[in-house]
């Protein structure tokens, strides 16, 4: 049995320990905000936080998460909407929206560790997240706006 917390709620997992966190979140817990895009850690659509750090849920087996504290897009704004989500809305970032939960989780993790990211910092932290619709320019703008808001 694996015990972990997801968005502050204690969970016990009894299934195949090799199950990627992504499918556990989506199929068992019904947290479908975390997306599947590649399954091999190359697109970032499945990004969630483990103890505050961005991880790819599709390549993280639940076996590795005993005692872990997981936050998904659904739990990001603990008291309403998170500054990053707010910035995303103010800059109308999404097009189809599918990649955006992952983008937002990566951006939130970046800002939590770096309150004033440079363009290079943004490139480094966000280059694991693909957006096929091509919203990168607005993602960059929104991250900077969120950083200002946090300052």
């Amino acid at each position, binding site marked *: 049995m694996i015990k972990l917390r997801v968005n502050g709620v204690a969970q016990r997992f009894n299934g195949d320990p090799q199950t990627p966190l992504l499918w556990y979140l989506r199929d068992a817990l019904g947290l479908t905000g975390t997306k599947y895009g*590649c399954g091999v850690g190359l697109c970032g659509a499945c990004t969630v936080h483990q103890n505050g750090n961005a991880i790819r849920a599709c390549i993280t087996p639940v076996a590795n998460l005993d005692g872990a504290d997981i936050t*998904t897009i659904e739990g990001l704004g603990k008291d309403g909407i998170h500054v990053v989500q707010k910035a995303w*809305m103010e800059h*109308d970032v999404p097009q189809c929206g599918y990649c955006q939960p992952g983008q937002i989780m990566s951006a939130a993790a970046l800002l939590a560790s770096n309150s004033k990211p440079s363009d290079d910092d943004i*490139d480094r932290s966000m280059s694991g*997240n*693909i957006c096929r619709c091509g919203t990168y320019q*607005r993602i960059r703008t929104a991250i900077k706006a969120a950083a200002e808001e946090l300052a």
Partner: protein
Amino acid sequence: MNRVENVSRRSLLKGFAGMGGLVLGMQITPESLMSATAKSGSHASSRFKPNIWLALQKNGDLTIVTHRSEMGTGCRTSLPMIVADEMEADWKRVAIEQAIGDEKYGSQNTDGSRSVRNFYQTMRVAGASARQMLEAAAAKRWGVSAEECTAKNHFIVHESGKKLGFGELAEIAADLPIPPQEKLTFKEKKDWRYVGTAMPMTDLEDIVTGKAKFGLDVELEGMKYASIERCPVVGGKVISFDPTDALTVTGVDEVVEIPAAKPPFRYQALGGVAVIGSSTWAVLQGREKLRIKWDRGENVIYNSDTYRTQLEATAGKPGVVVREEGDVDKVFASDAKTHEAAYYTPHLAHAAMEPLAATARAKEDTCELWAPTQNPQAARDEAANALGLDKKKVICNVTLLGGGFGRKSKPDYCAEAAILSRKLGNLPVRVVWTREDDMRHGYYHACAALNLKAAVDENGSPTAWRQRTVFPTIGWIFGDTSNRGSAGELGQGFSDLAFSVPNLRVEVGKTKTHVRVGWLRSVANIYHAFAVHSFADELAHLAGRDPLEYMLELIGKERHVDMSKVEYPNYDQPLEIYPIDTGRLAKTLTLAATKIGWGRKLPKGRGLGLAVHRSFLTYVASAVEVEVTKAGKLTIPRIEMAVDCGLYVNRDRVISQMEGAAVFGTGLAMMGEITAREGAIVEGNFMDHLIPRINEAPIQTNVHIIENSAPPAGVGEPGVPPVPPALTNAIFAATGKRVRELPLSKVDLGWS
């Protein structure tokens, strides 16, 4: 052509029943009948079968139904904006409801950049009808004439100043007749409240909070998951399979075969072996353990490298002439100076961020689907065919789409879900495509070889221009055996060449198709624009002239290009309403060039490039600035996109589509390629099929909209075609290297 009906008092309104407000339905004449109807003046159908377009409740809440699919273009917001504006409704009171697939809505195939183009007028009629009914309702209530009553932001205001809310009038309006079309009045442009503004997308908050429901998020009571192993080669079939090991995986329930599709493939389920179980992970594990023997069929002969050689050889020989003006041969036979160039572009995959997924629940003699589909009516057809049902017995619910780009117009995945649900004794089932499935079982953008030749005068201006294109046609999947591009494909940036050249010939060569080829964002315009606008730039440089000045000369004097001798569909619109307007081309090009600071002196390794292209009735010019290091590393600091799409609805979504097109266009040019080996697609995931990332995409894209009262055109696709040639033209300016094949990842851009 669009009939509105008051259906407030009918009980048939699923989801709207018992609201006790005003409900308007409308029937749309099928597009195919539209021109015939307009000409004959008769009505296409005497039976009136309305669908719901808007419903106003007594509390003032307004529901607007949107019948086109949302895949990121914003049409789920822009179409309701038109209704709300014309109705004088308060956008804050509007809720959006997604329509199911139903032919009564007219075409719902959300492709061809035509949601606003084809439905602008329909939406206005719905809104204006509701507004006038509410004005009439207020007049009745007050005992005054309707002329004294005006709708204003969810109220009807009387001349005297008294007013009533829309909601308070809904019940009275529900008993009033629909105003006849000839009595409808439309708001003047100066009074538009929403059309032309920047409106946040309807689903914005749901998207950023993870609540938005895409196709992969559909969850039904008792639902099973399915993952399908399909034959690597189109047209192949299962000889035998052994499910034993797959069935040992915990959570796997069943392994079932889906019969192979037979040509023409259309949107049929490809067939294969499906693993069914109680979680995604279980069925993916089970699938790894399947043992299948395939008969790979006749398309195993397909290899991208040899096919390319054949295409190029064909492009080097005369083809079928599809447009001819003057006599190019005579000029080429003279001692005029000539220039010839050959171009090649590869297959591409849509690679929408959400891989394909569909959920179905079959019953005895019905089937219900939930799918991220651009084309819900085709999904119904395909599911009905697969199950042997009348299509009326199939319902297709449309979820949000995690990108589409044309792939999700082709509902093979919906048919799979329907077939599996039936095979499982009518259990609900969701078919999940992996990224690899999505990449390897696509409907690929055609690869293409092109050959262009021009003769030039002493100024370097062309006196004769011959262009030839060869590509596997989309028609093949529908049974077309001509082995050549259709008028529609050729009309995408090739037979519609807008350059002013005295002698012109456009040809197409023949080639067989061996994979499912399908339309991808801007379709044949991609390779045609790449070759044509690269060649124009080549000629400018050969002549030692400024490319902007040269391109403007090629576009020539302001005119409507004469297409009377060409089989040219013009994106299914009449040329009288949507001509090929060279004035708009020139203006768009000039604007983009001005914005990039055309003519600036730049050091070697930096350069500017231009291209302007009309597609989907919209004019877009790209001006690209590049930096190329000596080692050949490319960066794109800035792109200026100028767009003239006629009337537009949501300003911000026009801008976002152009920003996205800049990434899509540079991305496909830099790294997009799908290859086949022995009939199977080689690339499988984002390690071998690359999509630009934030550190590779253009750093800054600025969008400039030309205000124009021309009829609405479309913006989903036309931003893409000018981008690749503008990029490679900029690379030439920076390095002196002429790129004639894509992707750039295969070309050494280094210079010294």
